[in-house]
């Protein structure tokens, strides 16, 4: 009887864990799986992928001094020091306990250590640097921690993901958990993963950050767009990263 009870508890725990992941690991599909073969080929072509223009710019910026230092002054060769880094973002900063995405971390480094002005969100320079740094983790799986201080942000992000918003009264989950793979007019609804960002979107004809993509989604459901870098986006980014755990980094992705 006792053994049975234990088994039941273990089963319940297992069910709870499985319920926590809205899309089981075996069904995880990167956004590129919902593209046409032409865009997928463009993304996989290291030369023709237009996002590589930003990656190349980022490579130059990496060793260009800004303020007192360049990124390369401390971090040396990005191919070594930045490999795998983006896969664990967003991350809680040990010193001040704040949740930072890669953009936030770069700007923190600039203002606290390099003595340089922080870069504006969505500026060409910041997109170039984030694209270059994320590129160093190409094909590595997303591995975000939601333990410790990150837990509260994760819970906030999950709540934000499930919050109905805007005139259409939709939450992220209504499309990206419940309806992915189905058609929305001419497009296939993706699972909404962040693993290719910053990405080059055909609609923008330019590179854009994950937050720009989130804002586009919010505008699509006629909800209020929050300002760049707001806490709610950061929490949501953490939830999205956790939800996409195991998917490989594809930056710079090419998207519709």
């Amino acid at each position, binding site marked *: 009887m006792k053994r049975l009870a234990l088994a039941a508890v273990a089963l319940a725990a297992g069910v709870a864990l499985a319920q926590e992941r809205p899309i089981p690991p075996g069904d995880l599909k990167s956004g590129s799986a919902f593209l046409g073969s032409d865009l997928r080929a463009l993304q996989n072509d290291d*030369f*023709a992928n*237009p996002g590589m223009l930003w990656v*190349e*710019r980022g490579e130059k910026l990496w060793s260009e001094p800004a303020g007192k230092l360049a990124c390369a002054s401390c971090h040396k060769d990005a191919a070594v020091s930045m490999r795998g880094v983006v896969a664990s973002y967003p991350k809680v900063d040990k010193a001040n306990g704040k949740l930072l995405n890669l953009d936030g971390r770069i700007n923190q480094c600039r203002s606290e250590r390099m003595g340089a002005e922080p870069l504006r969100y969505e500026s060409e320079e910041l997109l170039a640097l984030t694209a270059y740094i994320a590129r160093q983790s190409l094909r590595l799986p997303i591995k975000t921690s939601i333990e410790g201080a990150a837990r509260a942000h994760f819970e906030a992000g999950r709540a934000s993901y499930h919050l109905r918003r805007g005139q259409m009264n939709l939450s992220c989950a209504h499309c990206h958990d419940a309806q992915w793979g189905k058609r929305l007019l001419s497009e296939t609804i993706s699972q909404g993963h962040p693993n290719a960002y910053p990405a080059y979107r055909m609609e923008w004809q330019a590179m854009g950050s994950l937050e720009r993509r989130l804002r586009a989604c919010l505008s699509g459901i006629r909800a209020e767009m929050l300002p760049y870098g707001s806490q709610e986006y950061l929490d949501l980014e953490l939830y999205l990263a956790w939800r996409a755990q195991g998917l490989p980094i594809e930056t710079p992705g090419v998207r519709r």
Partner: protein
Amino acid sequence: MAARIQIPREARRGDVIEVRILIQHPMETGYRHDDVGHLIKRNVINVLSCRYGGVEVFRADLSSGISANPYVQFYTVAEASGDLEFKWIDDEGQQGSERQSIVVKG
């Protein structure tokens, strides 16, 4: 204007080589309006040409139907070692150029 060129570093004389170029440019169509309703002036790269060893081997007249950050690919025959030199100009008169050399053997 940043650009990327891809050609083989080496080729044998008479080989058909693939030449690829990707140029960073907004290719503003002239049909879009800004946030306050004013028409944004057309600004596209209108001519792109490539000279190989001083001889023009490719020329394209681009217009507003071409997407931002245009990508162009063509083929030419490897004849002698030298430079492939690209030049382009947009509606605002901004010029860009980029070159890459190839070694031809045999």
